[in-house]
C-alpha cells in the first residue's frame, strides 16, 4: 500500500544516521602541498573546467623570484579590490626578501596585504569553500598554507518595497535575497548589543548561509537550543528558500496550519525578535522565518501597531470574523439548504428555492465546482504576467460566473456565497492555504452530516489547534486567558502593553517598568495655546 510505503520511508529516514554524500568534501579534507602547480591542478580538477574559475598567476619579490597564484570565481568577487589591495601591494613590494624563510605567510598577511578579512588555511576543503563563496584564495609556491581573502561582491537587488504585506502607514523597506543586507536591516532597527546573529551553513551542495537572530535574555535559551539542534540535523543537499527550512523545523508537519511564521518586512521581524522570538534568515530568500509562532499572529499585521489602537482592534476583530466567514459560510449554506431548511427565514427560503429550482447538481457539487474553479482562477491569475492576469480575472469572474448562472448550471445565491468567502479569505494572507483546505473539508462534512458535521469539523479544528505547539509553546497561546490577551483579539494601546508575551519571553519580561499614560497637557500650556489662538 502506498501509505505503508510512505510511512516506512519516513521512519527509516528518521533512523538513518547522517551520511556524507559529497565526494568533493571528502577529498577536500586533504592538506595543501608545497607545490603550487599541484595545488592549482587539484583545484582545477575539483571545480572542473568552469569558465568562471579564474587563476591568476603572478611573480613578486626583488627579482621576481617568488611565484604565486590568486584563485577566484569571476562574478562573485570585486576585481578592483583584488587589484588594489592584493595584487598591487604584493607585486610592487620592493622589500628585500632573500629566501622563503624570511617571507612567511603571516608576514605577507600582516605587512603586505591591505585587506580586512583574511584567514589562513591549509585544508583544501576550506579553500574551496572560501573560493566558492566569493573569497579570493592566494596560494604561494613553497608554502603549504593558503590565504583566504574576503573579496565578496556580486549583483544584488536593492532594498525595495515588498510585494506582500503592503502598508499604508509604516516603514516600506523589505528584505532582499542577500543575507548580509537583511542582517543589516535588522541591526539598524535593534541597536542593542544583545542582538545575536548566529551563522550556520545548511545544504551539502548549496551550502546556504543561514543566520538565526535573537536577543539574548529575551529569547528563551531552550527554544534557541531546540532550534539549533533542528537546524543542525537538517540533512538536505539544497536550501533555495527559507521555505525549505520551514518544512524541516516545524513541529506538526501533517497539520494544515503552519507553525512557523514568516515576513518580508524588517520592522515586523524586529518586533517579533523584541517579543522574544527567534528569526531565521536564509541567504537567497527575502522571507525571514520566526519561531515560535502562535495562531493569533496570523491575524496581526504590521499596521496594527502603527495606527491607533481602536481602529487596529476593530480591524483585527474583523479579520477573525472573516476567518470564520471564509471557512464556514459555504458549509453553512450547504447544510441549511440540504438539511435544515426550517432554519432559513421563510421569505429567504423562497428566494433560495427559486434560484435552486432547475439547477441540475446537488448543492455540494455546485459549491465544489465554484470553489475549485475559484482556486483555479486564483492560481492562474498568480502565475500569469500581471497584464494578462487581469484579463484572466475578468473572463473568469464576470463572464464564466455570469454565464454559469444564466445557463442555469449554478444558483445565484451560491455564487454570492462563494464570492464572499473567497474575498474574506484574502484578508488573512498567512492562513489562505489552511482556509482553502478547511473550507473544502467543512463543505464535505456539511454535505454528508449537515449542521452536525459542521459542529464536528469545528470541534476537530479546535482540538487540532489547541493541541498543537510551536517549539514547545502552545499554538493557541494568546487566545487563552492571560496577559497576552492585550495583544490578541484586540490590541491595547502601546503604553498599556508593558510586558512581552508570557509564553515566549525568557528573563527580560518588561518592555518598560511601569504603565505611564500619555501626559495630559499642563494648564499653563493650555492657557498659552488659548492665548495664541486668541491673538
Amino acid at each position, binding site marked *: 500500500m502506498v501509505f505503508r510505503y510512505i510511512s516506512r520511508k519516513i521512519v527509516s529516514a528518521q533512523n538513518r544516521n547522517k551520511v556524507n554524500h559529497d565526494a568533493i568534501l571528502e577529498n577536500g579534507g586533504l592538506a595543501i602541498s608545497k607545490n603550487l602547480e599541484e595545488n592549482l591542478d587539484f583545484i582545477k580538477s575539483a571545480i572542473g573546467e568552469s569558465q568562471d574559475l579564474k587563476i591568476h598567476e603572478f611573480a613578486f619579490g626583488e627579482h621576481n623570484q617568488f611565484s604565486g597564484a590568486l584563485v577566484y570565481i569571476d562574478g562573485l568577487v570585486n576585481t578592483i579590490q583584488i587589484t588594489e589591495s592584493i595584487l598591487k601591494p604584493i607585486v610592487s613590494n620592493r622589500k628585500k626578501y632573500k629566501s622563503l624563510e624570511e617571507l612567511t605567510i603571516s608576514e605577507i598577511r600582516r605587512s603586505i596585504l591591505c585587506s580586512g578579512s583574511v584567514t589562513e588555511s591549509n585544508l583544501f576543503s576550506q579553500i574551496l569553500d572560501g573560493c566558492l563563496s566569493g573569497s579570493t584564495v592566494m596560494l604561494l609556491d613553497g608554502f603549504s598554507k593558503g590565504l583566504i581573502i574576503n573579496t565578496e561582491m556580486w549583483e544584488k537587488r536593492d532594498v525595495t518595497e515588498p510585494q506582500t504585506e503592503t502598508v499604508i502607514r509604516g516603514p516600506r523597506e523589505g528584505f532582499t535575497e542577500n543575507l548580509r543586507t537583511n542582517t543589516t536591516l535588522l541591526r539598524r532597527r535593534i541597536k542593542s548589543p544583545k542582538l545575536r546573529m548566529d551563522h550556520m551553513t545548511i545544504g551539502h551542495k548549496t551550502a546556504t548561509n543561514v543566520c538565526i537572530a535573537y536577543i539574548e535574555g529575551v529569547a528563551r535559551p531552550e527554544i534557541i537550543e531546540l532550534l539549533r539542534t533542528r537546524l543542525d540535523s537538517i540533512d538536505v543537499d539544497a536550501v533555495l528558500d527559507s521555505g525549505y527550512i520551514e518544512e524541516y523545523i516545524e513541529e506538526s508537519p501533517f497539520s494544515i496550519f503552519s507553525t512557523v511564521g514568516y515576513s518580508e518586512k524588517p520592522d515586523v521581524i524586529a518586533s517579533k525578535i523584541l517579543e522574544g522570538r527567534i528569526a531565521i534568515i536564509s541567504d537567497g530568500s527575502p522571507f525571514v522565518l520566526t519561531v515560535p509562532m502562535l495562531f493569533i499572529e496570523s491575524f496581526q499585521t504590521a499596521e496594527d501597531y502603527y495606527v491607533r489602537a481602536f481602529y487596529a482592534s476593530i480591524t483585527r476583530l474583523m479579520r477573525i470574523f472573516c476567518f470564520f466567514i471564509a471557512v464556514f459560510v459555504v458549509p453553512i449554506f450547504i447544510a441549511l439548504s440540504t438539511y435544515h*431548511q426550517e432554519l432559513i427565514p421563510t421569505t429567504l427560503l423562497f428566494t433560495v428555492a427559486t434560484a*435552486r429550482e432547475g439547477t441540475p447538481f446537488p448543492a455540494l457539487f455546485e459549491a465544489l465546482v465554484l470553489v475549485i474553479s475559484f482556486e483555479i482562477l486564483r492560481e492562474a491569475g498568480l502565475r500569469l504576467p500581471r497584464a494578462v492576469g487581469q484579463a484572466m480575472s475578468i473572463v473568469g469572474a464576470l463572464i464564466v460566473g455570469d454565464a454559469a448562472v444564466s445557463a442555469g448550471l449554478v444558483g445565484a445565491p451560491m455564487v454570492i456565497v462563494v464570492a464572499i468567502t473567497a474575498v474574506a479569505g484574502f484578508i488573512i494572507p498567512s492562513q489562505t492555504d489552511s482556509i482553502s483546505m478547511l473550507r473544502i473539508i467543512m463543505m464535505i462534512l456539511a454535505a*454528508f452530516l449537515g449542521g452536525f458535521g459542521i459542529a464536528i469539523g469545528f470541534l476537530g479544528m479546535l482540538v487540532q489547534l489547541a493541541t498543537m505547539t510551536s517549539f514547545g509553546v502552545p499554538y493557541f497561546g494568546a487566545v487563552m486567558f492571560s496577559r497576552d490577551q492585550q495583544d490578541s483579539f484586540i490590541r491595547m494601546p502601546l503604553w498599556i502593553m508593558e510586558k512581552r508575551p508570557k509564553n515566549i519571553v525568557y528573563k527580560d519580561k518588561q518592555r518598560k517598568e511601569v504603565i505611564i499614560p500619555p501626559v495630559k497637557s499642563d494648564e499653563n500650556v493650555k492657557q498659552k495655546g488659548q492665548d495664541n489662538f486668541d491673538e
Partner: protein
Amino acid sequence: MNKYNRRIYLIIILIINFILTGCWDNNELDTISIVTGLGIDAAENDDEIDLTLQVSKIKGTTGYEKGAVGQGSSFFVMEATDSGILSGIDKLEKQIPRSIFLHHNQVIIFGKEQAKKGIKKYMDVFIREHQMRMETWVLISDSTAKDILTATMEQEENSAIGLSKMIYSESRDYEVLSTKLIDLTSKMMEKTTSPVIPIVTVNSENGNSEAEISGLAILKEDKYIGELDLERVRGYSWIMGNCREIPFNIKTEHGYADTSISNIKLKNKPKFGADGPFISIDFKGDVSIREIQGFEDMKTNEIFAILQRSCVEQLKKEILDCFNYSKNLNADIYGFGTEFYRKYPKNFEKLREYWDEIYPELDMEIDINLEITDTGKVLNSLYMEEKTDENR
C-alpha cells in the same frame, strides 16, 4: 511505524463512515414542497376532516431573465379527507413528486363548522409533530378554511403568507388579535379560561380577494360559541393590556375628538367581597389628542376636562360591554379564573368546580385614571379661545 499506520486507518475509517451512511436525511431544496397554510374543515362524516394544504409553487428561474426572484408567488391547493391530519398529509404526499415540508407553515385555519364541533382532538398533532412550530398563527375562518387558502390577495398572491404578515402588523396595535399555537394550547390547559381565536373573512371581488380579520371567536372548552366584533375586541383589549397605543374616538355634545391612549398600566386584582368574588381593575393611561372638531369658543382647559371625563366614561362603557357579553356566554375570555388561582391558590380548587356558576355573577370594579399628556403640534385649534389656563 505503528503510529502512522494507526492514523491512516483512522482516517480511512472516518471517510468510510461518511460514504457508507450517505447523506442521511438529505433533502435538496428542489425535492420539497413548502407548505404555507394548513386548513381543517368539517367533513360530511363526523369522524373525518377535510384537510386543505396551501403549497407554494416555486417557479424555476434560470438566470436573471425573470423578475420573480424573491417571492415564490404562486401556489396550489391540495385537499384530502381523512380522519387524522398526518394521515391526510401522507395521502397528499403520494399525489405530488416532492415531499411535503411543514416547517414553514404560516397559519393553521379551522373552518367555522369544525370549530363548532370542537378542535381539541386535532391539536395533539400540532404539539407532537416535530415539523409543526408553536409560533404558527391559528385562525378561524368565517366560512371554510379552504375558502381562505384558495383566495389570492392583491399584494401577496399567497394568501397564507399575506395573512401571516397581516396578523403580525395587526398584533402591534392589538395583541389580542393574534393567537399563536402556543398561546392557544396554554389557554386550553388553563381549565377556566376560554381561548379566543381571530376570525378571518374573505370578500371575493373580481378575481382578487380581500381577507380581513373581522373579530375574535370565543371558544368554550374547544368549541366555538360566539364572537366579539371589532368594537368589543377593543373593550377586550383594554383589559388584556399588551397594547402600545390604541386609537380611541369620542363624541361629546360639544364636538368630536380623536385620541389615542398609550402607556397603559393595568392592574387587575381578584378579590373576595361581601357578595362573593369580584375583580377590581385599576387602569392608568396617557391620552394624546390627535384631532379635534367642534368645541367652539371654549377654553382649552375646559375642553380637556370634558375630553378626559368622556374618555373615562366611554372606556368604562366599552370594558363593561365586552365583559357583560362574555358573562352572557359564560366564557372567561380574560383568564380571571387564573388570576384567582394565582392570588388564592388554596381556595381555587373549590372555585374551579363552580367557576361556570361564578363567572356570570362576577362583578367588576373599575377605576380609570386618564391624563392628557400630548396635544400634538398645537395646543389650541383655530377656532378656540386663545387664553389658556396658567397651569397648562
